[in-house]
């Protein structure tokens, strides 16, 4: 196995060519690294595979295993989670005062991703529609604020709902043609939409000022008072905290509502869902629209935070990072998505030395998570319906 990988990576890892100057660099030490690395990794891989197989065998044999994972049990315990929640609350409130402005800015970015993740969670996690063009709605929100501010001087607080509404409208417009499509087609079409929006922003100079973007977007003001850069960073951080709490609240309520149940039913089985009298088109469109609303609002905050937007911020990789967040955290699980966003956005910030390996790690993460832990780090607890008097519990 190790020899195979050494063979596999030989041309790319060992030889580096420079065709302009006709120099060839031989990097044999890389080969040794690959050999040793894959030798160790193959053992880890085999071990994990064995564990996974053991797990499936156990379920097949009907052995009793804990259906509720540890993380959820901890969260379910009131004695533990109330103090933790309070501590987390205090920590978030005092955060900008004990840490530097730089830290606060990073945290705000992470919170924007929390919001994006929660929004995408509606589409991917609950409704099971893989949307790879999610960044398009983010861009719509950001450009909505940027353009409104540039042309009409509208403030942040007016732009926020407008951005959300525009996101929702775009969600419906883009969702309409893809209603009939299943999983993989949907992924590719949404990806296409995302790219279309980015390319249009890049090329339509009269409208969006092309690749140079729009600068000098005003920061949010506090009841008409303009704040200094330092204050407004802190202010924005609190706005983001508020918005995130609002998002969590809404998503949480949505999950248990009629429409949330309809989404989950749609994810599990479209045909059975329609047989139960759920309007497929309407349900899918609401998922798209609601998911896009959060992205639109997050976009407005993003524009206000950086005071500058250009199309380069809205590439397909942004969508995939958000997807990573949802997958890592656990599809459909709110707390998981929050944890996922914080881990994925904050870790690369603090490990600057490894910043260039970030995307490599994300890619690996997606594959490994899907194979060994498809539920994410904090999986969502599926509703379990227990028969009275019956031994086995059926998954609903």
């Amino acid at each position, binding site marked *: 196995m190790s020899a195979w990988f050494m063979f596999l990576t030989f041309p790319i890892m060992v030889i580096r060519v420079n065709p*302009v100057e006709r120099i060839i660099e031989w990097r044999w030490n890389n080969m040794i690294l690959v050999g040793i690395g894959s030798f160790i990794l193959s053992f880890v891989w085999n071990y994990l595979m064995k564990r996974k197989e053991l797990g499936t065998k156990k379920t097949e044999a009907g052995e009793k295993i804990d259906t509720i994972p540890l993380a959820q049990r901890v969260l379910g315990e009131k004695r533990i989670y109330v103090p933790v929640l309070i501590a987390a609350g205090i920590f978030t409130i005092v955060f900008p005062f004990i840490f530097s402005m730089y830290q606060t800015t990073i945290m705000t970015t992470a919170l924007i991703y929390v919001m994006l993740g929660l929004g995408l969670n509606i589409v991917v996690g609950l409704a099971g529609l*893989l949307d790879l063009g999610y960044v398009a709605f983010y861009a719509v929100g950001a450009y909505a604020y940027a353009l409104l501010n540039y042309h009409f001087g509208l403030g942040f607080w007016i732009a926020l709902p407008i951005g959300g509404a525009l996101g929702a409208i775009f969600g419906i417009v883009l969702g309409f*043609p893809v209603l009939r499509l299943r999983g993989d087609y949907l992924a*590719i079409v949404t990806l296409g939409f995302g790219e279309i929006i980015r390319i249009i922003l890049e090329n339509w100079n009269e409208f969006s000022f092309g690749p140079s973007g729009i600068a000098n977007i005003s920061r949010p003001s506090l009841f008409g008072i303009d704040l200094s850069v330092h204050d407004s960073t802190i202010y924005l951080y609190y706005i983001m905290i508020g918005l995130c709490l609002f998002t969590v609240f809404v998503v949480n309520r949505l999950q248990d509502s009629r429409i949330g149940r309809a989404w989950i039913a749609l994810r599990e089985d479209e045909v059975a869902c329609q047989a139960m009298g759920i309007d497929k088109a309407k349900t899918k469109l609401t998922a798209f629209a609601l998911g896009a609303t959060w992205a639109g609002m997050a976009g407005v905050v993003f524009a206000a935070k950086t005071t500058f937007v250009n199309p380069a911020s809205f590439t397909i990789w942004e969508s995939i990072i958000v997807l990573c967040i949802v997958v890592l955290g656990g599809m459909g699980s709110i707390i998981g998505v929050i944890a996922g966003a914080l881990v994925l956005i904050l870790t690369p910030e603090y490990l600057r030395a490894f910043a260039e390996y970030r995307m490599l790690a994300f890619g690996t993460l997606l594959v490994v998570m899907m194979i060994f832990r498809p539920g994410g780090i904090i999986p969502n607890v599926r509703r379990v319906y227990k028969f009275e008097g019956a031994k086995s519990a059926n998954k609903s």
Partner: protein
Amino acid sequence: MDYFLELFLGGLTRGSIYALIALGYTMVYGIIELINFAHGEIYMIGAFTALIVISVLTLMGMNTIAMLVIAGVIAVVYSCAYGYTVEKIAYKPLRNSPRLSALISAIGMSMFLQNYVLLAQTSDFLPFPSLIPDFEFMEPYAHIIGSTEIVILATTTVVMVLLTVMIKFTKMGKAMRATSQDKTMAMLVGINVNQVISVTFIVGSATAAIGGVLIASHVGMINFYVGFIAGIKAFVAAVLGGIGSIPGAVLGSFVLGWTESFATGYVSSDYEDVFAFLFLVLILIFRPAGILGRSEKHKL
């Protein structure tokens, strides 16, 4: 008229490259119903391997034709190896999982391979030497079609014919068709499904590598990102023709190639990628099964 002809032939060349990549998508989809997002990356790795081999051989002082053949062969071998490994690592463990999982895993693999090449090599565009000599008999038509285009068209045709023969007449081809119809049934009649899937990935990767080498020498430069866009477009082509159908993939590729060529020639070159995606959306709205695809009945 000359301009039209030029665009037409340009579209044809483009289309045949897309076809080489789209074949891999469509074959894999036909058999395991998975969009192999990493396919574009396999193609990119093929091109990179060829570039590296060519550079090494140039320093050793070899003549161009031999170099092209050797580089092509090594690129194909490596692409096949990568295709095989990717399948074993990222898709095989997920064969019985929901399709969303396999798709996400495929996206992850694509990201991994892209960044692996980016980190191990460079993020700059590297010039790719044009190895195909100008044919003398092409001289009078040189303003319409170059000899590189001719080579591309010829190679594509040969690959298509070989592939069709393989699928129609060999035992492996028969096994592939059986597997794509019903995996369980194929297993019951004694087909080694795992082997069939591996072979599909290998064949798909080989055609992608050929496409990679050809397009790299046509365009003249490559970087780690070429695979992604080309992969997406080839996928669009495969969907256009009806995914899972091999003649469909070829037809779809040509349609896409012409669309792009004419749209950029007559409308605007800024929106080249937009046309491809718009076309995809329109096709999916009006004819979701593609041009040659049969509409699938959802069985319960």
